[in-house]
């Protein structure tokens, strides 16, 4: 019975369902299961081999878009072209690195009739890894001590204050554990070559890692929140399996985060629980995570709720979720005709 539901055309990025996956395919699965609307999915890709491009039961049509480094005007021009053809209702960007551009373009997109539901620029900036210490102080949330460095020798001074090991982090992605200065130098060089400077050196908190994904309405209310414990972790530190848990402390911390920051949009909190049972906030990812479909399976369709908020529809908070729901990721080889690869590579559309 789908006749009375409106049809939304939704642009989604993050179609790279690889070993360090973007959230796009999982977000789309949630959207496809939405109870309150039907959707036509427009994939927005950066590379020709992002698997989502070729998943035709997931993505209806894909357009390549320019990398964030090309600037917002180039992106805007491409989105105008796509909108002219597809009449987009909503765009859901799923990469940290592209959010800056989409937040800047938010009002211009809205004037074209394209809705988004993104964090405000100040929220996006203050939760940045580089600013995590100040963020913790401002909102009274425990965070590991960290310092942004622009020269690897600056890390030598940190040895006085921090114990080994130290976590070496890129400004957008990647984290490597270093047990001595040689390892730290190698990690610094590897990550800075890929993601640029600064590099964040963070105190390592021994404990168990938990993650919470959720959705804030921008008014301080928790619309959705599902905590997860990783059960199977890849060599890149990504969850390949996880389970929803009933952790009242993690949920209380999430409520506090949303209430105090008035967070707007989807998010993922990366938390570490130390041996004393204290939670440390390691990172705030300003978008839905790749494991967002677990939240859908546990009873909170966060992608659907995000679209409802973007469209200005009422969106009541979810009331609970199923504990003990697991996700087990898998790899699947699709057979693709070279004509499709040729088309996306040459025309930027498929």
């Amino acid at each position, binding site marked *: 019975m789908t006749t009375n539901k409106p049809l939304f055309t939704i642009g989604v990025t993050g179609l790279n369902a690889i070993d360090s996956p973007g959230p796009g395919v999982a977000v789309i699965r949630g959207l496809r299961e939405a109870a309150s609307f039907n959707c036509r999915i427009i994939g927005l890709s950066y590379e020709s081999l992002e698997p989502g491009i070729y998943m035709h039961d997931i993505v209806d049509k894909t357009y390549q878009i320019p990398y964030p480094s090309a600037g917002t005007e180039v992106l805007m021009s491409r989105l105008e072209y796509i909108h002219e053809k597809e009449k987009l209702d909503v765009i859901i960007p799923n990469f940290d690195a592209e959010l800056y551009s989409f937040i800047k373009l938010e009002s211009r997109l809205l004037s074209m009739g394209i809705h988004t539901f993104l964090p405000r620029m100040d929220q996006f900036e203050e939760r940045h890894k580089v600013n995590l210490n100040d963020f913790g102080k401002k909102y009274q949330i425990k965070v590991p001590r960290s310092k942004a460095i622009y020269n690897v020798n600056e890390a030598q001074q940190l040895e006085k204050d921090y114990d080994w090991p130290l976590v070496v982090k890129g400004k957008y992605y990647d984290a490597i554990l270093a047990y001595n200065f040689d390892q730290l130098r190698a990690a610094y060089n590897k990550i800075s070559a890929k993601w640029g400077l600064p590099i964040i050196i963070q105190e390592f908190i021994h404990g*168990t890692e938990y993650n919470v994904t959720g959705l804030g309405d921008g008014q301080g209310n928790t619309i959705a929140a599902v905590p*997860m414990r990783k059960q199977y972790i890849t060599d890149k530190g990504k969850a390949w399996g996880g389970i929803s*848990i*009933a952790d*009242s402390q993690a949920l209380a911390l999430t409520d506090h985060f949303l209430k105090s920051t008035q967070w707007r949009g989807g998010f993922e909190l990366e938390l570490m629980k130390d041996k004393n049972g204290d939670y440390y906030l390691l990172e705030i990812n300003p978008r839905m995570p790749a494991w967002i479909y677990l939240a859908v399976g546990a009873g909170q369709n966060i992608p659907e709720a995000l679209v409802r908020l973007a469209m200005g529809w009422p969106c009541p908070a979810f009331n609970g979720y199923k*504990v003990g729901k697991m996700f087990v990721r898998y790899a699947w080889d699709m057979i693709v005709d070279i004509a499709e690869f040729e088309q996306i590579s040459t025309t930027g559309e498929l």
Partner: protein
Amino acid sequence: MKIKSNIAVSDNGFVFNPASGESFMVNPVGLGMLNMMRKGQSQEQIVAAIQEDYRAEAMTIERDLLDFVEMMRQYRLLQYDDE
């Protein structure tokens, strides 16, 4: 020796802690001990009940029970007064 009330234990001996997401398997003797502990039975009652089903000395059963309890404490499956 009180098990946390939210711990789920299946008939097969699969133990799930919903607060941490951890799961464990216990053997039939462990399952028997766990279920008796959940019912609030004392150490003496549990040792006596196990002795009825298995040919073992009370001292051996008691030692195994204490080891088992210590293991559950380490895995944070026990309820303490301050929790």
